[in-house]
């Protein structure tokens, strides 16, 4: 076993995943990589604790430009999940730091959760189950529409959206999509019709968001966009809450401008206890649980290890979020590369 210079620093972690971190510690030890896990509550604390780090495993706590600038040894910033909106990727790129993520471990789970929200909304499960428990059998007819032939509009067409599209077609839905990164060829290959965002909003019976949160996509759906959604349609979000202007969304749902929403994420998490969405019966909120199946952490762990293994052994790093980065070079160490 060759000696490595590496230290992995993890600031905070998901308490439900403690076993995953313990297993990682053992796995890293076998590869002579030091492991530092700290609960940090301030940037100053992170900067102090992470000084030796060459690898930073980032769970939730924002990795700001200030932090990045003050960690001279840092080479790899690994987002613990698939989102990396808590990492300043631009600053990392400027400083020659590779940003990677666990991009695929929960694709299936999030896609499944998305479909579960779509059909639960469409069948008005919240209202039906509630009415039955209040003593109403065969609740008054509400318009419930057959799935077959209805239109699902996917905003974004990455891995999760493509998996959702496949499942939705199995239910007989027509699928259209608006890609944010020129993904029209992939759509056509998957039998999905590429459309502009306005067309998507006007035609869809279900609008489902599958985009990363970036400065450009923040409030992608605001007043104008939410007004374009059909009165009988549902908005589904299993990506990031801030893709939607939540104040406008609350107004739209309260005024029943469209039929309802299935949301796994909110703009501010955890939300305030008296969040106005929580009293609406046409809204299902599932508390950022889309990815957390029994099976996901196993795949998650596998994926971290693939990224780390590549980096430690000097092979091209996979799942890189900033492929344009020019990685830092350290004397006596093979240069890191991106695939």
């Amino acid at each position: 076993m060759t000696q490595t210079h590496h230290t992995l620093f993890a600031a905070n972690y998901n308490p439900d995943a403690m076993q995953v971190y313990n297993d990682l510690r053992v796995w890293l030890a076998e590869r002579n990589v030091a492991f530092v896990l700290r609960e940090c509550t301030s940037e100053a604390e992170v900067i102090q604790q992470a000084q030796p780090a060459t690898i930073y495993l980032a769970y939730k706590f924002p990795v700001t430009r200030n932090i990045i600038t003050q960690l001279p040894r840092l080479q790899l910033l690994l987002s613990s999940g698939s989102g990396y909106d808590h990492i300043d990727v631009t600053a990392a790129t400027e400083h020659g730091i590779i940003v990677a993520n666990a991009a695929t471990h929960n694709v299936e789970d999030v896609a499944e959760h998305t479909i579960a929200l779509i059909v639960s909304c469409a069948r008005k499960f919240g209202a039906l189950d509630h009415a039955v428990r209040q003593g109403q059998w065969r609740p008054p007819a509400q318009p419930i529409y057959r799935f077959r032939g209805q239109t699902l509009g996917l905003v974004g067409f990455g891995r999760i959206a493509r998996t959702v599209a496949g499942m939705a077609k199995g239910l007989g839905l027509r699928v259209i999509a608006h890609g944010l990164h020129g993904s029209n060829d992939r759509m056509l290959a998957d039998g999905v019709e590429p459309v502009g965002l306005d067309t998507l909003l006007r035609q869809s019976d279900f609008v489902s968001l599958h985009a990363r949160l970036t400065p450009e996509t923040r409030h992608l759906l605001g007043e104008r966009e939410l007004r374009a959604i059909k009165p009988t349609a549902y908005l589904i979000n299993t990506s990031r809450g801030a893709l939607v202007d939540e104040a406008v969304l609350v107004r739209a749902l309260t005024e029943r401008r469209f039929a309802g929403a299935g949301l796994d994420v909110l703009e501010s998490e955890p939300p305030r206890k008296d969040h106005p969405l929580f009293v609406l019966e046409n809204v299902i909120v599932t508390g950022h649980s889309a990815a957390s199946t029994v099976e996901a952490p196993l795949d998650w762990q596998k994926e971290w290890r693939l990224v780390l293994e590549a980096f430690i052994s000097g092979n091209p790093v996979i799942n890189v979020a900033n492929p344009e980065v020019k990685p830092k070079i350290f004397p006596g160490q093979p240069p890191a590369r991106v695939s």
Partner: protein
Amino acid sequence: MANLHHAIAANYDKRVSWVYDSLRQWLAAKGIALTLTEVSNIEQVIEQARPADIFLAYKLAITRPVIAALPNLRLLMASGSGYDHIDVNAATEYGIAVTNAATHNVEDVAEHTLTLILACGRKIRLLERAVRNGEWPCASLGQPRHRFLGKTVGLVGFGNIGKAVAWRAKGIGFRALAYDPYLSPEAIQAKGVESVSMVELLQRSDFVSLHLRLSESTRHLIGKAELDLMSATAFLINTGRGGLIDERALVSSLADGKIAGAGLDVLETEPPNPSNALLVMDNVIVTGHAAGGTVESIEDWLKEWKSIIESYLTGNAIMNLVNPEVRRRTADVPIS
């Protein structure tokens, strides 16, 4: 010329009264009167239905005494797809064709079944309640929540609806098993579904879903012994008929954590007794007999009734006949 035909619809679902109005107009154009009536006992039914040769039966039990007392009756239509409220044997003996609306809501029920499977599997109700009660994040709630890909849906009964559920479940990534004593294993395998025994289905399935008719032989098909065979992480789904399940056994099984939960569109007694223990359980979703009632299915339902009546009036083979062995009453029995 006086029209020989007369139709009666005894009781109906008020939420869809437009369907009956539309049927009435369609029959009127053929010179056939439709009596739409609310009755509450056998005597009233017999009195009102005496002139009718066509009887559209919604819910009300059409028993042997009713059938025996209606000499003109020739076409007895169950208004929906279930006909457990009709004594089919008696009808057959009296030479009366019994039909149902078998296909109008097949895909709607299949879609609802799949929705119950997905909502149960993801513990959507539990998560939603937790969020409203101030919990966040919910990653650790309702565990174990399993990935659907590769999990098993077991279909008890592999008729039109069972097949439609299998098709959709496979589209999500489930494996499908089926038990159906009326079909050969080859007929099941031809749909890409594994044919298994009832015991094997109960043992292997992550979701057990019921798609068969209620009859004396299927009443309480799922009782304590069957529930005990299911795995502790499995769900029971029912969009068929409540009486297929021994509800007391189900309540114990759910309360003792012997199965993970249930998704029920139907109950043994409907509307349920307010003290029904299922209505206060957190691992149960109850949707109030709503599976078949989409906007589209109601339109298709009316079309299906009309086709059946048309086939009867024109003297062709009667569509959707559930007692094909019937020797139909002939003209020597007077109509009106």
